[in-house]
């Protein structure tokens, strides 16, 4: 089932930043308290708008990590050295500040409990953010749906939501976590060393009981191309795969949205 943006203009609203939490050395969560936040579906994003004193504005899109029904909206923003907006979030924004957002937006890279499962989530780097929203939605709304997350990060320290993921993997039957760490050999045996490969995907699919009903892949374009190619080689049907790609060189907009083209 597809979500859709309801008719009528999606209005900008000023929201307060309530909390800021450091996730990794380059990634922070910004918790927002919107006045209006209806019909949010896991996987959607928001547009953010910043205004300078002379009226100059910059807009970016960021994925939402929180689940539907959560009291606050969590934006997870990676600091991109060359960026205009993400360094501002990391270096300037403080709790109590106000920013403008509009959303939720996006009707394709979304998962609702009615969509059912099994569900395979594959994320690279900060591409895990909309997938986390789906994981949290599953735990809250549909704990019987089998869901697996395959997540690639450079180092154990770069794993966003590390503690929460590991705790969920312990506590939630039907949720399988596979974190692949590419640039160091993790001492902790709960992490795989190396890239996501056919052997790992094979293991994950076996755990899910076969090809998933829905697959969501999010990360940089090369990551998404490699991961979707691997899934198709391993028998996942093309039609079941939804992707969200971000990045450009140099990319801005930490995690980009499930948006049309390019």
């Amino acid at each position, binding site marked *: 089932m597809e*979500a859709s943006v309801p008719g009528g*203009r999606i209005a900008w609203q000023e929201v307060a930043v309530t909390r800021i939490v450091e996730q990794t050395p380059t990634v922070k969560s910004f918790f927002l308290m919107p006045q209006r936040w209806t019909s949010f579906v896991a996987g959607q994003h928001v547009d953010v708008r910043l*205004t300078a004193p002379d009226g100059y504005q910059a807009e970016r899109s960021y994925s939402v990590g929180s689940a539907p029904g959560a009291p606050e909206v969590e934006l997870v923003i990676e600091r991109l050295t060359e960026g*205009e907006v993400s360094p501002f979030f990391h270096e300037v924004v403080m709790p109590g500040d106000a920013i*403008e957002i509009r959303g939720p937006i996006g009707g394709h890279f979304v998962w609702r409990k009615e969509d059912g499962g099994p569900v395979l989530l594959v994320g690279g780097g900060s591409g895990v953010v909309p997938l986390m929203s789906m994981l949290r939605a599953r735990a809250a709304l549909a704990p019987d749906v089998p869901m697996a997350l395959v997540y690639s990060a450079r180092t154990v320290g770069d794993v966003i939501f590390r503690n929460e993921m590991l705790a969920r993997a312990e506590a939630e039957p039907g949720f399988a976590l596979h974190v692949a760490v590419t640039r160091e050999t993790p001492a902790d045996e709960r992490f795989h060393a190396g890239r996501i490969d056919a052997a790992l995907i094979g293991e994950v699919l076996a755990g899910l009981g076969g090809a998933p009903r829905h697959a969501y892949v999010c990360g940089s374009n090369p990551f998404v191309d490699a991961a979707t190619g691997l899934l198709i080689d391993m028998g996942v049907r093309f039609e079941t795969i939804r*992707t969200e790609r*971000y990045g450009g*060189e140099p990319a801005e907009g930490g995690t980009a949205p499930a948006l*049309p083209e390019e």
Partner: protein
Amino acid sequence: MAITRGFFGRRPSEEEARRLPPGQYLERGFPVLSAGATPRVATDSWRFTLKVGPRPVKSWTWEAFNELPLTALKRDIHCVTKWSKFDTNWEGVTIDDVLADAGLAPPTDFVLAHAYDGYSTNVPFGDLTGDRAMVAIRYEGAPIAPDHGGPARLFVPHLYFWKSAKWLNALQFTERDEAGFWELRGYHMYGDPWREQRFTGD
């Protein structure tokens, strides 16, 4: 307008600012966004079909399509994800040349573009005629890479780039303006970046 505490921004140059539609920023790379996996379409099995409603009018193989007159367009492109890229160079066959080769006069005002991955998007015919649009087969002097829509994609640079359907395999004239893939999912029916028509209701 609410001023954001501590935000000063990094302004584009005056010329860049003039060429950037509202809410867009200048991108020097070429980001890729698409709804699913990248279909691998081989040129020897590639077919492109022109249709009126359900009726195919003419179909081209890759070889036959490459015999049509090539037009080069240098244009700025604008993605609804907020990046714009200036001075991109494309070569392809204008829609007027496609129609001429099929001996077809435009039978309706609306066109639906279809793609190999099941994607579709609507564009009024008036936005496809002249040198405003084409079926592009080359980007920056080389075949279009699969993740950017090769072998062939629609190219309608004056609208948000989701209208420039990748992996194009058909153009279909329709009686009415019919919504395509993203238009059914909350995105604007027309998508003019200068009027910031991103979503339904914008």
